[in-house]
């Protein structure tokens, strides 16, 4: 039901992440062919032709990002894989890091060659333990196998790689904050322009791509950009690793070919709502995307155009299934507590606004809500939009406005009756699901 596979196309076993198994699947042959037969700009041409969009959340065309790099500008270039997977609901890149680390490394080497990068980085969130250990072991295997260092695979190309571990900061998943973090500083986002492809890490031209975006590069170059484009839809080429969680029978990571019918995916592939309940709504792509009600997704297909037309987005592929009976007021409280906790404090509207919103929602949940609170939440959300350096304040606003627009009655009920319409329930199954 989920369509063709690009990434999850091998059986996961106890050793499938190893170099030996990866080689047995044809691993590193594309890299050898690229170094032997292709010029760097030909590689970029294939990535442009593939039409692949960024898989981290912003859906920016990867080829267009790469195209900004000038190959002969006589200064170092850098490549960073963004493995700071922290958007709540998202755990797909972890699948690649744990199960296909060499696919990421081969793809990064091909990308490094295309962009003439001699130092690549993987920025991985500090909490990830097994993903880090798997990736670190793969890097050492790859060095020993002659895939990193000088004269790799017998060519005259040289590339080193560093796994850079974060230390607990959501905002560092934002590309410019990620770069500030790799520079060994607190993770503050930077104003643009200049774009990071012009002045990025250590003021050098830098390409930052999501782990999954990069992991597709080997397949794109192996089969050619045009052939890759035959997968998915015209405007969303390829596949998306979707991590699905919440009130769903079979949570996990699924690879969906773009264009797959969304409701059928949830119902059939994921087993539908936990405990046979009714679907209330979904968060389609990480909590910063707007919720879509069960009625709104009946005709939606999983691709950028369809989800955007429905009023939300693919985002980071982090889907959360929410069952009927869930209290949306308490759900929003969790989101606003999170945004308040993670605001880096650099921009006033976000630093102050997240605190205001968190305090208002806490007040409502404590039974002290005022009738004007709903409008206040909406007003702060709108006022934050576009006024900050990074998109975090905007994202908190989108999430809030989405929930307020569709579940305003639950907020009105909570304020008027000083209690939840749904007993404050976040769980739908289990012995004490209705405890709150």
């Amino acid at each position: 039901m989920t369509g063709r596979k690009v990434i999850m196309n091998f059986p996961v076993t106890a050793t499938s992440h190893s170099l030996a198994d990866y080689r047995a699947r044809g691993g590193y042959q594309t890299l050898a062919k690229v170094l032997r037969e292709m010029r760097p700009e030909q590689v970029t041409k294939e990535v442009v032709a593939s039409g692949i969009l960024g898989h981290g959340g912003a859906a920016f065309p990867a080829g267009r990002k790469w195209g900004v790099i000038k190959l002969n500008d006589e200064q170092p270039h850098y490549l960073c894989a963004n493995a700071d997977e922290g958007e709540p609901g998202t755990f797909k890149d972890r699948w690649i890091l744990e199960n296909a680390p060499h696919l990421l490394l081969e793809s990064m080497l091909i990308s490094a060659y295309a962009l003439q990068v001699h130092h690549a980085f993987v920025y991985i969130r500090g909490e990830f333990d097994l993903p880090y250990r798997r990736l670190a072991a793969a890097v050492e295997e790859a060095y020993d196998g002659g895939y990193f260092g000088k004269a790799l695979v017998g060519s005259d190309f040289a590339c080193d790689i560093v796994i850079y571990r974060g230390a607990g900061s959501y905002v560092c998943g934002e590309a410019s904050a990620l770069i500030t973090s790799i520079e060994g500083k607190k993770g503050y986002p930077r104003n643009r322009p200049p774009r990071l492809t012009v002045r990025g890490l250590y003021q050098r031209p830098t390409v930052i791509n999501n782990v999954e975006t990069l992991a597709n590069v080997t397949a794109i170059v192996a089969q050619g950009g045009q052939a890759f484009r035959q997968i998915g839809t015209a405007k969303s080429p390829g596949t998306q690793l979707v991590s699905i969680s919440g009130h769903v029978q079979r949570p996990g990571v699924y690879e969906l070919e773009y264009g797959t019918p969304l409701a059928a995916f949830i119902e059939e592939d994921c087993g539908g709502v936990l405990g046979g309940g009714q679907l209330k709504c979904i968060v389609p792509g990480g909590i910063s995307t707007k919720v879509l009600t069960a009625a709104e997704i009946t005709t939606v297909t999983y691709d950028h155009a369809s989800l955007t037309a429905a009023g939300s987005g693919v985002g980071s592929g982090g889907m959360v299934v929410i069952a009927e009976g869930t209290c949306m007021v308490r759900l929003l409280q969790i989101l606003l507590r999170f945004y308040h906790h993670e605001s880096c404090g650099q921009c006033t509207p976000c630093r102050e606004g997240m605190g205001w919103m968190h305090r208002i929602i806490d007040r409502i949940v404590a039974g002290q809500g005022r009738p004007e609170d709903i409008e206040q939440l909406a007003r702060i959300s709108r006022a934050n939009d576009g006024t900050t350096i990074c998109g975090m304040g905007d994202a908190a606003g989108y999430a809030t406005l989405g929930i307020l627009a569709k579940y305003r009655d639950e907020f009105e009920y909570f304020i008027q009756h000083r209690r939840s319409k749904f007993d404050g329930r976040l769980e739908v199954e289990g012995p004490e699901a209705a405890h709150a």
Partner: protein
Amino acid sequence: MKHLVPEFDSMRRRYPAEATSSLVLPCLRRIQEDRGYVADEDIAELTAYLGVPRIQIEEVLAHYTQFRRKPIGLWHLQACRNLSCSMRGAERVIDHLCHKLGVQPGQTTADGRYTLSTVECLGSCGTAPVVMLNDAYLENMDATKLDALIAGLPT
């Protein structure tokens, strides 16, 4: 931290020559693994070793939630409280741990054995609720499983 300098020197080999400042985070992480937290003398010595401004190190320690300036318990339990975990029982798990250990999130038991923290999304929503025990992810947790795990920790 002085005994870690040979490790730091070898770590630098794969970094670009211009990237000395990048070493702040990995050095602090290693110091914390070694000592359990980052002490004043570590900051002074790392400032001297890397030649970066002292305030840069202070800001890093304040910005990132994983760095600590004080020792914590032998076993650090960090329970995720974000959306998917809360939808699958995290609030009950956190209540249980508070009750069992007799501490609130952010506190350490009087015997210095356990520190309880709540954290935001750990990127493990498909196996919610999730609790970290030191570096390891404990997935699909509930009160019974946690009790068994805690009972099995070496004394």
